[in-house]
């Protein structure tokens, strides 16, 4: 079940202590052009290779990883998985074609196409999985992957309920897995988000008072379950698409976010930076409320977070955040970093200033941490708290009344109505 080579990688592979690399790929693959020998590559399985997963795998218009993980010389993709036959087969063919071309061996085949992700988890030679499935699957798969001894990259939202999110953190911690959330704004985009947060942490805007998150909270809701049914096409595994969601008749919609409510899809990007800037990576809101009809909350520090744009500020919509302090404000998104007054963002960070975790490549950080067993820049703790901020904001959107939250015990004290919304029953046999 577990991958022995993962344990050995840390003590042997990384530091060259002479532990032989298992022969999970032919030694003839030791290739041309400086291709890294297979034993030193991180072996990956991709679960979900639609738009997002396909972008990670092979590159694409949106991706921050040119050529995808396949193009990285320190990676070997061993499996691709999707409930759609064409997707998995095409992805598999493209991966194998890439390796065949790179290695100059026309018949080289190392990648396997799977329908059921459990086939990927069962492979002892797969170090890590990249989960880019529909959102309602993310946490359940991540828990199962951790239990199978895999390291995990998981797309956002990393969970659709607070309890699922906690289950991921517990499983990852229980098994000492490396986990990275797909909230790449901490690593990518030229370090704009990192700089913004470091400036805030070092008091460049004075005392932090308010944060504008640009987006509201999000949650999940199941649709009508007993509508008219269409025949399930032979090229899709509908049961596996649904997974822990309630059984529904096939309706042709296998979208990644069909059960989303509010900003479940994009919100975690925003709240991840809110949490980073507020130095709240190990905690969360203490009270939630509505502000101008939008979800909002307050940390124990008194800093208020509003699920809306900063009035009149054009920067921020693209994954961004506006930090408002007693002496100025800083707004950041993927395209811009601006401040009022403008010079705030031009002042360099100094050696004695407080620093945050530094990574310039999200994929590079993940792979490095798989090798060194260090926590990633968006590890399970960070992801749990960012997802919780988003999901708790989703609950206040549903209940439309002020709520108290205990970030230590992770419950709404004396508020059973709200506590009921922290989890959803999963369809057997799936459990997070």
């Amino acid at each position, binding site marked *: 079940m577990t991958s022995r080579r993962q344990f*050995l990688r840390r003590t042997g592979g990384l530091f060259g202590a002479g532990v032989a690399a298992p022969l999970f790929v032919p030694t003839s693959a030791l290739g041309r052009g400086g291709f890294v020998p297979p034993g030193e590559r991180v072996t990956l399985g991709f679960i979900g290779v639609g738009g997002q997963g396909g972008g990670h795998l092979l590159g694409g218009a949106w991706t921050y990883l040119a050529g995808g993980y396949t193009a990285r010389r320190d990676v070997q993709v061993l499996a691709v998985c999707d409930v759609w036959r064409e997707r998995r087969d095409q992805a598999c063919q493209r991966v194998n074609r890439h390796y065949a071309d790179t290695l100059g061996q026309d018949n080289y085949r190392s990648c396997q196409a799977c329908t059921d992700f459990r086939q990927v988890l069962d492979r002892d030679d797969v170090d890590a999985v990249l989960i880019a499935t529909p959102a309602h699957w993310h946490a359940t798969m991540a828990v199962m992957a951790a239990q199978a001894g895999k390291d995990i990259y998981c797309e956002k939202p990393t969970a659709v309920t607070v309890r699922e999110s906690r289950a991921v953190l517990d499983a990852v911690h*229980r098994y000492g897995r490396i986990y990275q959330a797909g909230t790449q704004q901490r690593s990518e985009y030229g370090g704009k988000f990192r700089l913004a947060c470091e400036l805030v942490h070092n008091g460049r805007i004075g005392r932090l008072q308010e944060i504008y998150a640009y987006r509201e909270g999000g949650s999940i*809701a199941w649709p009508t379950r007993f509508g008219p049914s269409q025949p399930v096409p032979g090229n899709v595994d509908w049961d596996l698409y649904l997974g822990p969601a309630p059984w529904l008749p096939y309706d042709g919609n296998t979208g990644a976010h069909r059960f989303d409510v509010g900003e479940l899809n994009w919100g975690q990007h925003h709240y991840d930076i809110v949490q980073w800037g507020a130095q709240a990576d190990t905690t969360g809101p203490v009270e939630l409320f509505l502000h101008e009809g939008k979800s909002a909350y307050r940390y124990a520090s008194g800093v208020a977070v509003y699920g809306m744009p900063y009035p009149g500020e054009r920067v921020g919509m693209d994954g961004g955040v506006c930090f408002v302090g007693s002496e100025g404000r800083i707004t950041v998104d993927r395209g811009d970093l601006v401040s009022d007054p403008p010079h705030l963002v031009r002042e360099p960070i100094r050696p004695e200033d407080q*620093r945050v975790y530094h990574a310039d490549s999200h994929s590079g950080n993940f792979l490095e941490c798989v090798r060194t067993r260090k926590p990633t820049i968006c590890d399970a703790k960070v992801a749990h708290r960012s997802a919780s901020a988003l999901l708790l904001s989703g609950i206040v959107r*549903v209940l439309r009344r002020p709520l108290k939250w205990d970030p230590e015990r992770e419950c709404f004290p004396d508020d059973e109505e709200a506590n009921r*919304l922290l989890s959803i029953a999963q369809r057997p046999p799936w*459990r997070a």
Partner: protein
Amino acid sequence: MKPWFVLAVALTALAGLLSTSLEAAEVRAEQPDQPWLQVLQSPEATLQQKDAACSALKREGTARSVPALAALLRHPDLSHSARHALETMPFPEAAEALRAALARTTGLVQVGIADSLGKRGDKAAVPGLAGLLANGDTQVATAAAAALGRIGGPEAVRALQQAWAGPTQATPAVLADSLLRCGHGFLADGENAAAVDVFRTLVDGPEAGDLVRQAAFRRSVSAAGDLAPTVIAAAMREGDEVLQAAALQLTQEFRDSRMTDAMVALLPQVSGALQLGLIDNLGWRRDPAAGPALLALARQTNAPGRLAAVRGLGWVGDASAVAVLVETAADPDAELRKAARDALLVLHRGPVTQSLLAQLETGNKAVQAEAIQALAGRADTAAVPRLLELARSSPEATQTACFRALALLAGEPHLPSLARLVIEADTAATREAAQDALGTACQRVEARQHHLDVTPIVQGIAEHTHSPEARAALLAVGALLVDPQVRAVTLTAARDGEARVREAAIRSMCESRDPAFLPSLLALARDSSDVAYRALATRGYVRLVTDENASLDAKSRLARLREILAVAQRPEEQRVVLGGLAAVPDPTALALAVQLLEEPAIQAEAGRAIVQIAASLAGTPQPATEAALRKVWALTADPRLRQDIEAVFKQMHGMRGFLTDWQVAGPYGQDGKDYTALFDIAFPPETNRDEVAWKSMPTGTDPQRPWLLDLLKHLSGEQCVAYLRTHLYSEEAEPARIEFGSDDGLKVWLNGQVVHTHNTARPLTVGSDPVNVTLKPGWNTLLIKVTQNNLGWECCARLVRPDGSPLEGVRVEAGKTE
């Protein structure tokens, strides 16, 4: 699907099932779950209605609703719905119902119920779940094991350990996971001894695989409390390789200083990969207690862990590490060099600046240069006075490093000293380095403060006692600044008696980014007797006119280019003007370039300008553009230019049929309504067109997609809609196809009739939504509504015949009055 939809379904169900009397309304107010209970109990209610009622009861259900929900637990289609409500209900009745159902169900329904009991942490369910560990159905036995793991406690552990030791259908991985969870539960309750017993079984038992052993070890370390560092160290010394790997990872996770001390003590006791891992982790932990150990390692030239130690020193070291880091930064090994340089940028404990400055006094030039580079990288302005001294007195290599650092560090108070270094430089190379530093520093300060005290530069230029070379160098610095004092002194210097100063002033004007020099440059280009100055002035003029920062519109640019063209006598200058003309995307610029095509000496440049202008106008193809391109084609034999002409023709051809003349209205939105809901809400362009303030919609904003209507760029916004309107004139009734593409949803009206709807969120695909229509004779009004979820907000429309061939003869006019 939105919650309100679920609610709506349930309410629809209620309409047929509930009395609408006042009495019923009162019942609803006092007993919020009563309506849903009636749905659950109604024989007429459909599965869909009962499912919706369960959803509502998840939130609103009381203990009274439990029996009705419990009745559904065994239902193959509604068991999940009932669990959805019961799983999170805080009442003991809910747990009782689930326990009762557990004993009376099988298969997946039973699996789900076991899962719900586990999630509730229902200790009373343990006997029932324990009994299921021997169930012949693997899924049931496994679910029971998982539930017992969640519930925990001695009874659950006994059952799980029994199953672990004996035959069971539950999967071993889940059994082990459940035991780990139980152990964790003991830890949380302060029962460490019980926890350790559980973990020991798994660590020592041969049945557990590497992963479980490692996980159990991790947990047993948690149980060790204050002794955790000792346990971790012991495992690293004496454990097998799996436990060693787990222990090494744990050295990062235990953050207190005792762990650091234990790691430092362990360093000489382990070797190879473990030792390297420890060194690496000592740096990662950022605990200054590790500083001395890493410093000692960094000093050992051949130590295997030197690289990791140097990397970590930046975070854990102090000023005492400066010497070794600066020395290592000059090491021939590239990896070591980079690690040391990076470390120097973050080192911050103790008097680091003073230590770096002390390195400047060593005789080793490479070390001096590294120290200076570090001071610059650290934005260490305290070092500026000493750097200024060194820049004056040091050998060339050190001096160059000083000037590079001063360019980054010098502030406004240091500019006089820096200007003095320019003036007093004793060699040309020193003066050039000082001039570069001064120029960069001035630009940096100006960008930060939006103003700059230029006195040192102005005085330096004006002072006749200074050497002509010094004044010339300061004039070059002046070219980088936009300032009235600099402008005045430059104009004066342009008439200076000293030829070198005069020339430097003219060159400064010609290279300046100050648009106030435009009249002077025009005069110089017209009147100078020196052809070199005329050429320089022309070049400077064209550069300023076409500079994007000048914010001139196409018309103003063109007017100024005409002025300079009128005085450009030689082909050299005319070519420069043509270069500027090529950057003006305007039909008049095209016409002017066509005129110049007649001049044989500049025909090639005119041809290139025409092609460049035509390319920028390809989004709105005009006969004049085509004619100009054909003219160039006829005159040129240059294969690359011909290739470019073909590309522009292709681009223009690709634009055929795209409707690019539109008016826009919006954005429109409503609180609480997302893009899908807004799709069906009629805003003024649909209901009362007279009230709408239509504005012209910009096109051609994306040169790669000139047919694109980029609403995000023009309007911005999320969860909103916008409308686009244009008019099409056809001589007669004309069957046509309009091929739309949109990001996100799209609704189309032709002459007030909806001809297409697609409520969706998607990226734009050209022609994704073809719509067959018939244009009526005369004017037709085409109105489209585009919804916006988030990110991109775009659309495009192409008018063709129904078979896809070009449709000629239809006039398009967005601004026609209706």
